[in-house]
């Protein structure tokens, strides 16, 4: 750059900076209500529901102005929120997956809600235990529940009738499941009894974890320092999968592209272990929902997500918390559930008059709600979980591809997990 160009560059810079300054001054002079910015990834009717809730809150709370902003696909929300924090301009509230709790807990801008949730009017204990657990990291509460779901058995009634197999009952065992899957499989018609996501991702792992818990096993030891899934319970759970997949060949293995949902909807698959989020993908199937078949018990796994609050000064934090308290109150959340088909977060929602309408509106949803009582355990909230999940995923995947035996695969994964847990 030479001397002649400098004035021009300076002029451009001045215009840009000037514009920014004018813009921000203009924004500030108008702002009398406290600003609360909420980031979410909702689209369609879910987006409508949250906008309606925010609008009604703003109307009744003139001192606060809540803005709900769409941050795109929730899969990338953590990166976006972290980038925003690094840039110094971040939301007050963000919807973040439960599996990120340990990561976001480390940010100095994340609000510690441990004292806030003790507020009696919030009735924290009214919320399902599994949903509460996922916001708790090292004894600190860093998020309040945004969503809860769980895995249940969804089945195609027509295929059951065709094969003269009675519908699954709440007393089904793994053996019943295996037998039915075998009967419902018809290689000639390219029809499968069951489907399993076998890409080795968390999709593979959490379904296995439900089986592991049903057999009485655990992911880690109670002190969280060692792997505990390579016990007889873990081997039993993985053997059950191995027998149905490798020996009976009655399971469609999905390579992680979600093909299973399309195939279930076109009547190629009789049973799925899946959650309420999938139900809208099955418009062509008359399906039923049952709790998971048992081994020692009927446990399920739930994948709760959090609303995480960030520190933008006391005034905004308090306003954000007050909004959250209102938003998660029994009546308000039931409205969201009614509009979106999400499961209730609070036990008290089940006693509301609107709950009956909700169960009627969403076919099979009642079983998922009842099944929440079976969500007894949670995945460990540690930032090492993604690595633990990877090791377990490879173990399950290798067995289901017929490349390894359950005991050996789980032992190998456990050794890896122990090493991961040893690193600081």
């Amino acid at each position, binding site marked *: *750059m*030479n001397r*002649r*160009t400098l*004035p*021009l*560059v300076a002029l*451009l810079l001045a215009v840009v900076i000037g514009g920014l300054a004018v813009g921000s001054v203009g924004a500030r002079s108008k702002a009398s209500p406290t600003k609360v910015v909420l980031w979410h990834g909702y689209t369609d009717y879910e987006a409508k529901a949250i906008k309606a809730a925010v609008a009604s809150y703003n109307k009744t709370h003139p001192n606060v102005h809540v803005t709900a902003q769409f941050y795109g696909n929730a899969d990338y929300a953590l*990166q976006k929120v*972290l980038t925003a924090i*690094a840039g110094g301009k971040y939301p007050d509230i963000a919807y973040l997956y439960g599996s990120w709790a340990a*990561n*976001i807990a*480390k*940010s100095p801008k994340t609000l510690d809600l441990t004292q806030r949730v003790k507020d009696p009017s919030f009735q924290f204990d009214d919320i399902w235990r599994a949903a509460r657990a996922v916001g708790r990291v090292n004894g600190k509460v860093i998020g309040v529940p945004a969503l809860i779901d769980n895995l249940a058995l969804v089945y195609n009634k027509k295929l059951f009738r065709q094969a003269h197999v009675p519908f699954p009952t709440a007393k089904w065992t793994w053996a019943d499941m295996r037998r039915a899957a075998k009967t419902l499989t018809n290689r000639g018609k*390219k029809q499968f009894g069951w489907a399993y996501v*076998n*890409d*080795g*991702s968390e999709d593979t792992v959490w379904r296995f974890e439900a089986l592991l818990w049903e057999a009485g096993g655990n992911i880690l030891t109670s002190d969280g320092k060692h792997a505990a899934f390579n016990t007889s319970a873990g081997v039993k759970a993985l053997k059950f999968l191995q027998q149905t997949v490798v020996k009976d060949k009655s399971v*469609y*293995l999905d*390579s*992680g*592209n979600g*093909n299973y949902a399309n*195939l279930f909807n076109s009547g*190629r698959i009789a049973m799925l272990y899946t959650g309420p989020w999938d139900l809208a993908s099955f418009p062509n199937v008359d399906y039923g929902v049952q709790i998971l078949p048992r081994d020692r018990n009927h446990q399920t796994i739930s994948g709760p997500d959090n609303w995480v609050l960030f520190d933008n000064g006391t005034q905004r934090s308090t306003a954000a918390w007050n909004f959250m308290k209102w938003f998660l109150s029994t009546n308000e959340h039931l409205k969201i559930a009614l509009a979106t088909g999400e499961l209730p977060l609070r036990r008290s929602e089940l006693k509301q008059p609107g709950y009956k309408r909700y169960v009627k509106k969403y076919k099979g949803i009642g079983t998922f709600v009842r099944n929440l009582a079976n969500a007894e355990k949670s995945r460990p909230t540690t*930032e090492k979980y*993604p*690595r633990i999940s*990877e090791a377990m995923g*490879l173990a399950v*995947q*290798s067995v289901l*591809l017929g*490349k390894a035996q359950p005991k050996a695969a789980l032992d190998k994964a456990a050794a890896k997990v122990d090493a991961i847990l040893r690193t600081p």
Partner: protein
Amino acid sequence: MRLVRSEHTAGWAFILPAVVLIVAFGLVPIVWALLLSFQSSDFVSPPKWVGLANYQALRHDPDFRAAIVRTLEYTAIFVPVVVLGGLGVAVLLNAKVRFISIYRTAFFVPVACSTVATAIIFNWLLEPTFGLVNWVLGWFSLGPYGFFQDPNQALFSVVLMTSWGWIGFNAIIYLAALQGIPGELLEAAEIDGASRFVTFWRVVWPLLGPATLLLVVWSSINALQVFDEIYVSTRGGPLQATTVVVYYLYEQAFRFFAAGYGAAIAYVLFVAILLLTLLQLWIGRRRVHYTS
């Protein structure tokens, strides 16, 4: 006013937006990634300076080594397939037949297809039970193959998918080069009694040298950086059979949040690509004739 009107200033003004964008989204991230590779960072807590620790850890990481081997395997198959495949298609498309522009368009369509769309299409084409490919192979009593779901076939299936998308591009470059070959040289060869094969081997192929060099360099860089199609189709699996270097980098940085480690992988890859390209250009300079 004289200042603003001067050509020099106007020139700067015109390129300023581009310069700002390149600096902001090109140079800054490149330098930042280099700094990041010397740090231990999870994107959340303040980063710690660790010097060369990330690079040292890479030397002892068996998964990284496996990813390198896999990437080299992929490159060793992909580059000959797309370069020779592109040449073959270009020779066919150079023929004087009717509807030639339709054929040319047909071969170029996959290039215009987004890589994500390509991967989604191939997911279904190569689906073992319901896919079209196994169905057609079944007529000839072949298969069924596992493709993306078989650890031994997954990498080859990825090559099949990515080369489908790339052959058209290489064919267009070769086609342009073929049409640039002076007709009198071909005539001279014919008069001298050269067979079609000899003409191709002794006259056409050497004249295609610059195009071949360009495509080998370009395809190699692409192969070493392959990511999108793998992300959409196999996610590095099954059993890490398609975990190539960039996918491994992605997992480290964005699944396990080891940002510094991921940045170190990126720089190792950058240096490797730089060296390979220099080697190819050096060989090319000795073997390729730029004038006919």
